[in-house]
């Protein structure tokens, strides 16, 4: 039998997610919501409904990922002619004009990162639900990376913002944001919330129940 790890949960304590104060659980107040005595944040032993919430957000983001990639993100109007561009056609434009570093930036940030993020979160959710004990340290690291890189997907939204501002020359040339931009922004924001709602401590909880 392995020794039980000295975690906050096993010691009947809760670590405040906001100020990291270790709080003893006051059992006389169980049932009411517990408040951190230092910073006033609500205390949770684990993020509430972490798996359900993360699943819901991952599924929502996966659904929005489709129109985000199929619908145009920008529409260029020049002398009455309109040309719509999706994320992928933007990448292809950069490759065809020889600017492959920029093509790579957009491809990684807008297509690869959101997809990998959704796949990673799905993988983490499934392994936690199956109470897997497989390489918890590496899965925690995977989670940490997923949480950190998500913001960079916003780059395409900012490109659209700058393009619509700069290319606003009336008849000569005007760029408008397309519906794809809205869906894409939704994907980015929802995946950020999904990563936030996943609790990496669940990875270790599953391992502990197996060790006991």
């Amino acid at each position, binding site marked *: 039998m392995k020794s039980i790890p000295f*975690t906050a949960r096993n010691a009947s304590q809760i670590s405040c997610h906001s100020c*990291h104060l270790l709080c003893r659980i006051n059992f006389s107040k169980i049932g009411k919501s517990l408040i951190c005595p230092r910073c006033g944040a609500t205390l949770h032993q684990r993020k509430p409904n972490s798996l359900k919430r993360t699943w819901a957000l991952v599924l929502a983001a996966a659904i929005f990922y489709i129109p985000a990639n199929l619908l145009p993100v920008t529409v260029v109007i020049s002398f009455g002619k309109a040309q719509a561009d999706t994320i992928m056609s933007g990448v292809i434009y950069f490759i065809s004009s020889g600017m492959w570093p920029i093509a790579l930036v957009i491809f990684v940030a807008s297509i690869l990162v959101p997809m990998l993020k959704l796949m990673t979160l799905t993988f983490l959710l499934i392994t936690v639900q199956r109470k897997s004990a497989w390489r918890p340290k590496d899965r925690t690291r995977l989670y940490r990376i997923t949480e950190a890189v998500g913001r960079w997907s916003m780059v395409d939204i*900012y*490109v659209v913002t700058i393009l619509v*501002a700069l290319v606003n020359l009336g008849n000569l040339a005007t760029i408008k944001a397309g519906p794809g931009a809205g869906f894409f922004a939704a994907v980015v924001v929802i995946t*950020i919330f999904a990563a936030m709602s996943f609790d990496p401590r669940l990875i270790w909880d599953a391992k502990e129940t197996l060790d006991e």
Partner: protein
Amino acid sequence: MDALIACHECDLIHRVKPLPKKGVANCIRCGSVLYRHKSNSLERTLALSLAGLVLFVLANWLPFLSLKMEAQVHQINLVTGIKVLYTQDMQALAILVLLTTILAPLVQLLGLLYVLLPLRHDRVPPKFAPIFRLVRSLETWSMMEVFMLGILVSVVKLAKMAQIVPGIAIFSFFGLIVVLAAANVSLDPHEIWDRWEKLR
């Protein structure tokens, strides 16, 4: 008795030990960072936030970029794109960009000054805890460095069709990114909470 801290990624409890200069304490089980040693944390963060506020005003007030095409010159500010998106019926998108590139950094800077300036003189400002918590949670939503990459991509994209001239605001904006990142790095939230708790 030493204070205890639980790893926020795997929940394992550790004893808080003083660290050498620039030292980092990692969780022995999952490897995530528990806490770091930061010297002059409060003073440094305060100085950087003040510098950040000045740069913020410049970045938002001065011309950001200009586009020259045939005989037309079109000058924009940081906020122009947000306004255009709003008029193009993309209100939600406009609000998201406003929040991530202007509001979140501004509230972060003001909040840090509000919390740290009195604390440095051993005073506690009203509503300290909720405001400091807000400042900490805004870090995720402040995305100026990503916006900077967006500027780079847009300029390259438009280079063949028009001439793009950077304005002074772009340099202030770049400075603001560096300063705000440095402020976040030098901030030691554990020390701030401890200091506040002793004064309360």
